[in-house]
């Protein structure tokens, strides 16, 4: 492994007036268990680097896993060949940061045999005569990120991360799917309970009935609401979209119901937490929506006054050093008037409870237009769940139909991670007054 300071020095020696290096060293274990075959155990370790080199105001970027010298030369060469960036100012200088304890040493010591055994328990828990397929996977990662720049920043953060996913398929006269995704800093999943839960979800989806089209009250499960929030609404809050006029929002615009608040809060000791962003800027809390209105946008150092939201990511790839930093949220929290889920259901005369969807990721980022297929859910009649719902679609605009019509949230909250953006969302179920249903 090469020290980041030596890469910085090399970049300066080769002509960079400023430079920034970030490295990530990680060790991981991953197990996938599929009853009946296709089981896998994966072990690995990676060391990755990314360099931004500035020559006469122009920035060159290189990401690499080895061959440091060629990578540094490449970044310098790219910078030299470029026109000066009018927005480039400087790499940030050092400033005090909160320290979050995001590392649980016990994760390092979990033997892979234990993970295999636990996943077998999960898969056994999904067994039922009507369950035709199930599988489960678990990932454990221990990593250390180090970032340094020529303005004096030098930070390091170690973190542990574990995740568990389970899915199963029930079949009778029709089909039902059950899923669960869990995230933690430590290895503390209820393997048996989650397996039972997923089986129950799948079986409850058998016997689907049609719903009527039209405008209805809709309760969106945490995973569904978080997918819509991230894919259809979040892009309009990102500073690069604001800067380039790809956002229809402005500060103060009314975009949500009065009681709804959406906050980017990475200062939590949880999987979604981080002490600093991917430019080394100490993390801070940013209120995006409060009192119905847009309060702030998310910026990195390039797009505006940084809100410590410079994240290295690409859509569908999650966070990765492969990419230059740009504005993104990593830890959204949605709060508002809340009650139990049973209360939300009882307040719904004629509507749907949507527990699973597809196609939120294809929402139009700049306009907020979404159209999702309900792949799991229930019809609600007169305040009670009546039957699982046959496939239908829910459509609307994020800032005209979805957020302004949020009536209530459930007080039991869940954490979900988007597969499009590197963003976690913590939210309850969300009751929306009126959304268009196609059936």
């Amino acid at each position, binding site marked *: 492994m090469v020290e980041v300071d030596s890469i910085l020095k090399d970049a300066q020696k080769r002509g960079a007036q400023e430079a920034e290096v970030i490295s990530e060293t990680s060790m991981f274990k991953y197990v996938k*268990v599929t009853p009946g*075959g*296709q089981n*896998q*155990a*994966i*072990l690995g*370790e*990676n*060391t990755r680097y990314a360099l931004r080199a500035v020559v006469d105001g122009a*920035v*060159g*970027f*290189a*990401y690499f*896993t*080895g061959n440091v010298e060629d990578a540094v030369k*490449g*970044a310098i060469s*790219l*910078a030299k*060949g*470029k*026109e000066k*960036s009018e927005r480039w100012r400087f790499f940030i200088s050092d400033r005090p940061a909160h320290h979050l304890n995001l590392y649980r040493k016990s994760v390092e010591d979990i033997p*892979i*045999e234990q993970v295999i055994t636990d996943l077998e328990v999960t898969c056994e828990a999904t067994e039922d005569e009507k369950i035709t*397929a199930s*599988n489960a996977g678990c990932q454990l990662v221990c990593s250390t990120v180090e970032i340094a720049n020529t303005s004096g920043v030098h930070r390091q953060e170690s973190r542990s991360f574990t995740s568990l996913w389970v899915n199963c398929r029930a079949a009778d006269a029709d*089909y039902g*799917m059950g899923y669960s995704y869990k995230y933690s800093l430590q290895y503390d999943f209820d393997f048996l309970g989650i397996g039972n839960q997923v089986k129950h979800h799948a079986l409850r989806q058998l016997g689907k009935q049609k719903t009527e*089209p039209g405008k209805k009250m809709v309760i969106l499960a945490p995973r569904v609401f978080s997918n819509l929030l991230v894919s259809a609404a979040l892009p309009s809050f990102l500073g*690069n979209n604001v800067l*380039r*006029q*790809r956002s*229809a929002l402005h500060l103060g*615009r009314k975009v949500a119901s009065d009681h709804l608040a959406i906050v980017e809060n990475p200062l939590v000791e949880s999987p979604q937490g981080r002490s600093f962003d991917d430019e080394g800027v100490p993390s801070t809390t940013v209120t995006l929506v409060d009192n119905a209105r847009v309060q702030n946008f998310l910026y990195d150092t*390039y797009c505006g006054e940084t809100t410590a939201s410079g994240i290295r990511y690409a859509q*569908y790839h999650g966070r990765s050093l*492969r990419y230059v930093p740009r504005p993104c949220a990593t830890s959204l929290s949605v709060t508002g008037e809340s009650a139990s889920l049973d209360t939300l259901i009882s307040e719904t005369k004629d509507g749907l409870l949507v527990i699973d969807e*597809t*196609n939120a*990721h*294809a929402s*139009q980022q*700049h*306009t907020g*237009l979404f*159209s*999702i297929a309900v*792949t799991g859910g229930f019809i609600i009649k007169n305040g009670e769940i009546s039957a699982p719902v046959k*496939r239908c*679609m829910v*459509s609307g605009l994020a800032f005209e*139909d979805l957020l302004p019509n949020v009536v209530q949230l459930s007080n039991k909250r869940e954490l979900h991670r988007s597969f499009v953006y590197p963003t976690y969302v913590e939210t309850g179920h969300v009751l929306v007054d009126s959304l*268009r*249903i*196609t*059936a």
Partner: protein
Amino acid sequence: MDIIDNAGQQGATYADLRHDIKKMYTLVRESRKTVNDGVQIDAGFCLRVLVDGSWGVGITTTREKLCTLLPHIMQSARALKGNDTKIKEAPSETIKSEKKAKKRFVNEDKLDFLKGLEASVYDQTDRISSVTAVLTAIERSLYIFTSEERMIKTSVDKISLRIVITCKEGNTLGSRTIRWGGLGGMEYLLEREDTIKEDIIQAAREADILINAEHAPSASVDCVLSPALTGMFLHEAFGHAVEADSITSGRSVLTGKIGEKVAAECVTVKDDPTLPIFGYYLYDHEGVKAQPVIVVKDGVLHSFLHSRETAALLDATLTGHCKAEFYSNIPIVRQGNTVLNPQDYSFPELLDVKEGLFLGDTAGGQASIGEGTFTFGTQYTREIQNGELGKYLKGCSLSGAVTETMKKIDAVGKEVQAIAGVCGKGQMDLQGWLVPHIRIREVMVGGRGG
């Protein structure tokens, strides 16, 4: 290859080592300014061993670590007891295959090319708020060694260009995204510069129109799909369901349906990675030679797409459809290039519906293979009235049951287009579609309109 021999000596019935080097050069311009000019070099090793019927996999960036990892990988595989995974073997041989760019990305002046395209866009309307151009060149070299004494060295260069055009008036936006991609380097785009410019000009006009366009309806309608959407539809609705890892795990609704009618008779679909379009490759990431596969013939399900493992499980021929995005991913079953055989209908003939919708470019999609359903989005739609294309409407989504919808295809166009596609499945993969327009009757369309 010592590590392969060591794995065999320690009890592996099969082992392969993939040394994978992927270089991506990316140039990003936003609103006529270069915002990123970078290179990504992902280089590392993925070692797979099959021990007592289970897979163990080790991933590392350094060759020296492989020896340290091997005993742990073997132990992990043994801990997955009770499995009986087998693989189909390929013959012992040494192969070298290359498809390299004529014009290397780093040596070419890309800026003039992009500036020319940008100028074409800004000339169309003064409501352009943003134009983003992402130009990416990929140079991928793979060295695969297997315990069959098979050594494959393959290098393929590809290039892609994606342009996002946003128009704005007040608080309302309209947006269009278009992508081109193919084999080789800048020469691929330079040879098509005129066509690309025409496409961009059209997209800019459409983004402008979409600002004030009404919303698409929420209804069941007859639809004509653009080639990009046809490709997306076949890919999502069908392609994932015939990836044999879904079949063997029981998750696909097409499990056990070979020989059954799953589509209209006018539908013949094959997957051919050897076609020289965006999804091209000659050897997959298990070192298996890619084969053209007829997936559906005259509406009847014919074959699946296989990895070594699924081919063994289903006693099928190797098809070479197993790929990984980076060295740090294990290879999984993927589509290559999806081809829908053209039929007889001209575009005006396809539009011959009383009332319907033309569905424009793709906005992404997703399949629920266990349910046998699909959903995908469109960037825009157009009304069809009495056989004529009418006004533009905003985008919407299409959703349905796979086999039910495939049987409702009643017309297939005569002219194919090569489309550059991208697929996620936990790992992004570059894939090609060679497809015409199609018409589907009575499809559920979810727009925001009434």
